[in-house]
Structure formats: C-alpha cells, structure tokens
C-alpha cells in the first residue's frame, strides 16, 4: 500500500471523535464516574456525618445544631465509655493474636510442602465466606447447652464438670468474640505475609546458614526486617477493620450481655438506626475518626518505605 492511498483512505474524524481525542475532556470523562460516586456517597456523607454529630437529628425529623452536647452526654454515658475500652481491648488482643498465628501459618506455608496452592486456597475460606454466616456458626458453637466445645471438654475429656457459659457473662463473651475475630482474620494475614515472605531471596538465607546463623537469628535478622514494610501495611488494614468491626459482634451477642460487649460501631448502630437517634449515633461514629486518621498516617509512611524495599524507582 503506498502513501497516496493511505491518505485517501483515512476519513476525517467526526466532531464527537475529535472531542474524545481532546485530552483534558477525556480525562474529565474518565474520572467522572469514580470521582462522582465517591463524592456523592463517600465524601458528602462523611461531612454530613460530622455535621449530624453536632445536631439532635432523629429519623424522619430535622435536627437542630446543639454544639458539643452529644459528646458531653456520651462522656457521662457508662455504656459508651465501656464500648471505647472494649473496642481498644478487642482491637489490641485480636490484632496480636491474628498476627502471631497468621505469621506462624505463613512461615509454615513457606516451606516446600505438597499441595501448597490447594492448602492456600482452603485456608482463605474463612475470609471468603460472609462473616455473618460464619459468625452464626460460632454462635451455635458457643451455645450454652449444645456447645460442641463444652461437649468435648466436659463429657469426653472430663476436664470440667460444668458446661461453659460462653456468651452469658461479660468476660467470657468478650474472649469468645475475640477468638471468632482471630479465626476470621488469620487467613488474610497469613496469605498476605506469605506473599511478602516469597519475595525474600533464598540466597540471603544460604549466606546466613554458611555464616552459622541459627533459625531464630535468621528470622530476627533477615525475615523480620524484610517483612516489615508489608507487615506494616497489612497491620494498618487489619487494625482499621478490626477497630470498626460490626458484623461479628452484631451477629453473635448484639452487644450483650447487658451492653458489655458493645464496640463503638455496634453502639452507633443501636443508637442510630433502631434507636432512631441519628445525631447521637453519628457522634459515636465520629469519635472513631481520630483512631482512623492515626492508622492512615501510619499506612502512608509504610507506603513510603515500600519503594525503598522493592528497589524500584518512585513510580
């Protein structure tokens, strides 16, 4: 095909096509759906939520600006204070548990074991299945009369003579929820940390072995520092989503017994939607924001480290 026919064959683009070849216009069109959705359903509600926290809005009615009254009331509310401590305790213990066990599982999976990818697929199941539905299974496992754990411990092993009352007392209920949360969190931590472990070059371990390093020294001096950037990111997400957890507690205890297991999110829901006190619920939700900002900043600096770790340019 020579040049003259090529020129002749090329049609003049229509006005619309020309418009779409305008870079500024194209950028605006491409960003519009995502940015529009996020502005309307994320940024605006976030602002609205902060505004609602300073009003006495109820469902179906217009609220009035009442300044800090919601927060002043909450500070005198034992249930709220209790939920704040509970949330921090729950987040701290569950995160420690998830990362200790998740890291251990990741290290186990990092060995050359048969059916590695099949095992990896099965391990992720608790993470895939709707949390509420596995929470219902835990609810059944924690049943006061027909708990399978009680059956094994009391009737089979005879280690105790009374059935466990998992959800009837505040402290056992808290620990039961934490165990369920750890169970659900292990797969995510293990699989993401395993991905991090697999990026560590085996030659580093060979060199360490030749130098006579013990397994603990290898873990301490090679694995831990190289895993730190990805660990920081995974932990940020984990802390963020454990702190704002709602489903497990709502499904298993609904905050009971006597409001002792409420997290801030479940308390916000209880006051805001069934209790119709939108303003007060929003105030509880807004009280979580300082913690989230802390987690976000943490994530930001961890992301900064990542570039250094992968050794790629800042792209």
């Amino acid at each position: 095909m020579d040049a003259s026919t090529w020129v002749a064959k090329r049609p003049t683009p229509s006005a619309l096509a020309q418009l779409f070849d305008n870079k500024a216009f194209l950028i605006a069109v491409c960003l519009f759906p995502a940015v529009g959705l996020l502005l309307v359903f994320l940024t605006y509600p976030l602002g609205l939520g902060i505004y609602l926290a300073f009003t006495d809005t109820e469902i179906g009615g217009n609220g009035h600006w009442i300044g800090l009254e919601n927060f002043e009331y909450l500070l005198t509310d034992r249930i709220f204070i209790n939920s704040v401590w509970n949330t921090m305790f729950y987040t701290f213990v569950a995160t420690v548990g998830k990362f200790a066990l998740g890291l251990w599982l990741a290290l186990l999976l990092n060995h050359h074991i048969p059916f590695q990818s099949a095992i990896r697929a099965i391990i992720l199941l608790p993470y895939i299945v709707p949390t509420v539905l596995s929470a219902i299974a835990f609810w059944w496992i924690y049943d006061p009369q027909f708990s399978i754990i009680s059956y094994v411990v009391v009737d089979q092993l005879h280690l105790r003579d009374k059935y466990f009352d998992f959800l009837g007392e505040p402290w056992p209920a808290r620990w039961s929820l934490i165990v369920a949360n750890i169970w659900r969190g292990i797969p995510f931590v293990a699989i993401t940390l395993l991905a991090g472990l697999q990026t560590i070059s085996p030659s580093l371990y060979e060199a360490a072995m030749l130098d006579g390093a013990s397994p603990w020294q290898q873990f301490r001096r090679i694995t831990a520092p190289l895993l730190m950037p990805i660990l920081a990111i995974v932990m940020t997400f984990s802390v963020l989503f454990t702190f704002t957890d709602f489903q497990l507690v709502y499904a298993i205890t609904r905050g009971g017994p006597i409001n002792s297991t409420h997290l801030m999110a479940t308390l916000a829901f209880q006051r805001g939607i069934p209790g119709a006190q939108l303003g007060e619920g929003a105030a509880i939700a807004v009280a979580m924001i300082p913690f989230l900002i802390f987690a976000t900043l943490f994530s930001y600096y961890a992301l900064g480290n990542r570039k250094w770790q992968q050794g790629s340019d800042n792209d």
Partner: protein
Amino acid sequence: MTDAKPISPAEADQRVDAEVSGGVTEGEGPQLLSWDSRARRIVTVYIPLVIFLIVLLFPFYWMAVTTFKPDNELLDYKNHNPFWISSPTLDNIKKLLFDTDYGHWLVTTMFVAIGSTFLSILASVLAAYAIQRLRFRGSDYVGLAIYAAYLVPPSILFIPLAQVVFQMGLFDTPFALILTYPTFLVPFCTWLLIGYFKSIPYELEECALIDGASRLQILRRITLPLAVPGLISAGIFAFTLSWNEFIYALAFISSTENKTVPVAILTELVSGDVYHWGALMAGALLGSLPVAVFYMFFVEYYVSSLTGAVKE
C-alpha cells in the same frame, strides 16, 4: 550442607518424643543445621499445619453436619455422636427453600452483587486509565485520594448514608446498595487496575497512536484486552465483597423480600427465643456455598489480587 545423617526409624521416634516434650528446637548451634530429617519436619511443620487446617475448617464442617442432622440427633449428644450423622435428612434445607423467601433473597443478592460489581469495574477502569495512562498534573494525588477513600470504613458512614439514601428515595430498594457498595469497591479496584495498567508496555499505545487510533480505540482494542486478568481479579473481588457486605444492607433495607442473604439469614430466621439451629445452619451453608464455589473457580486470580493490592 546436604550430608544429612541417615536416621533409623527408632532414632527418629526418639527425637519426636524429645521434641514433643519441649526439648530440641532452637539454638542448638551450627552442627545441627544440616539436620532436616523427616521427623523434625513433621513436628515443626506438618502437625501445626494440620491443626491450623482443622481449626480453620471446623466451623464449616459443623455448619454442614448441623444442616443435615434431624432434630432428635441435633439436641441429643448422649445417644448420638455429635460429630457424625446417623440418619441424614434434607428437612432443614427443604424448610429453608420452601418455607422462607430464600429464593427471593438469593436473586436480590445476585442482582445487587452483579450490579455493583459492574458499576465499580466500569468506574475503576476509566479512572485507572486516566490516572495511569493519560497522566496529567496531579494524577498521583487523585490516585492517592482514591486510595485514601478505601481507608474510610463503612461503620462510620452508614448513619449519614442512610439519610442520603432516604433523601434520594432509594431507601429499601436494591439500588440503595448498588450505588453505595462502590464506595468501598471503586478504591480497591482502581488501585488494583492501576497496578495492572502499569505492567502493560506504553510502547504498544504509542504505536497505535502513530497509526492514527483515537484514545478510546486504544483503551478498547489494546489496553483492555491486555488487562483482562486484572479485570477478572477486580471483578471477583468486587463480587465477593458485595455478596458479603452486611452493615449497609442491614441499615438501608427494611422489607423482608428486599433483604440480601447474609442479612436475611440473621434477621428473618432468628425469631423469638427458640433458635432453629438446623434451619439457621442450612441458611448459613447455602448462603456461603455460592460465593465459595465462585471463589474456588478463580482462586489464583483472587490470591493475586489480595496480595497484589497489599504489595502495590
């Protein structure tokens, strides 16, 4: 370091015993480094791994066993071994399928999950293309802002969102969920797709530009076909996340027939003080199965998107 000492079975057993009773583990010094026998591997790797697997899978097993148990076995541990079923029954599943709106909930959930996945992928592909390929001043900051949106959890948004949804007249309709789920799907999918677009050589697009293709043609004919694995990963992730979503579905939907499966199982099947554990577990099992089967088909994509998103 390959000269491992041959060990007789008896010796190996002794070592297992020593290790089980808390003996040999770490800090044994260099001379033991080459000792990587079967016994040691079994104790330090396989046994913990099997325990992990049992603990992680037991709730599902228990769910399934309870589903197929008749009521007399379910509540009688004295005469029936609770870990097994002597006379399996489909009563609970029949009850779930025919005495409740389960079919309805399933259709609603499917509709919501597919709708929100489609919407999120569309928005994310365009946004990721603009941020990664059209490159404009401040595109990095737009990308960072979208990533930051992922750090805003639904738990602090659902109260004001309930008001927004109500004012829009969407309360108690599936569209309330289809439009709000992208708030957590779009940030994740965009971030994932930016990573994928990055891996496609820009030279391909330059060639097409020289050949006279328009930007949209390039996106449709070159970039998207090459990004198909990324699109599948993002789609699967978005689908499972919307299937599993709970708090928005609980707050924005009130009528029985519009509920999604996870919410309906918890709120509709739990009635009064007597729990019908058989039916509840059947609901939990059937609500988990579609997403578990779907996941099993695309495991590799799923794992790569999960780990990719963290590494990106």
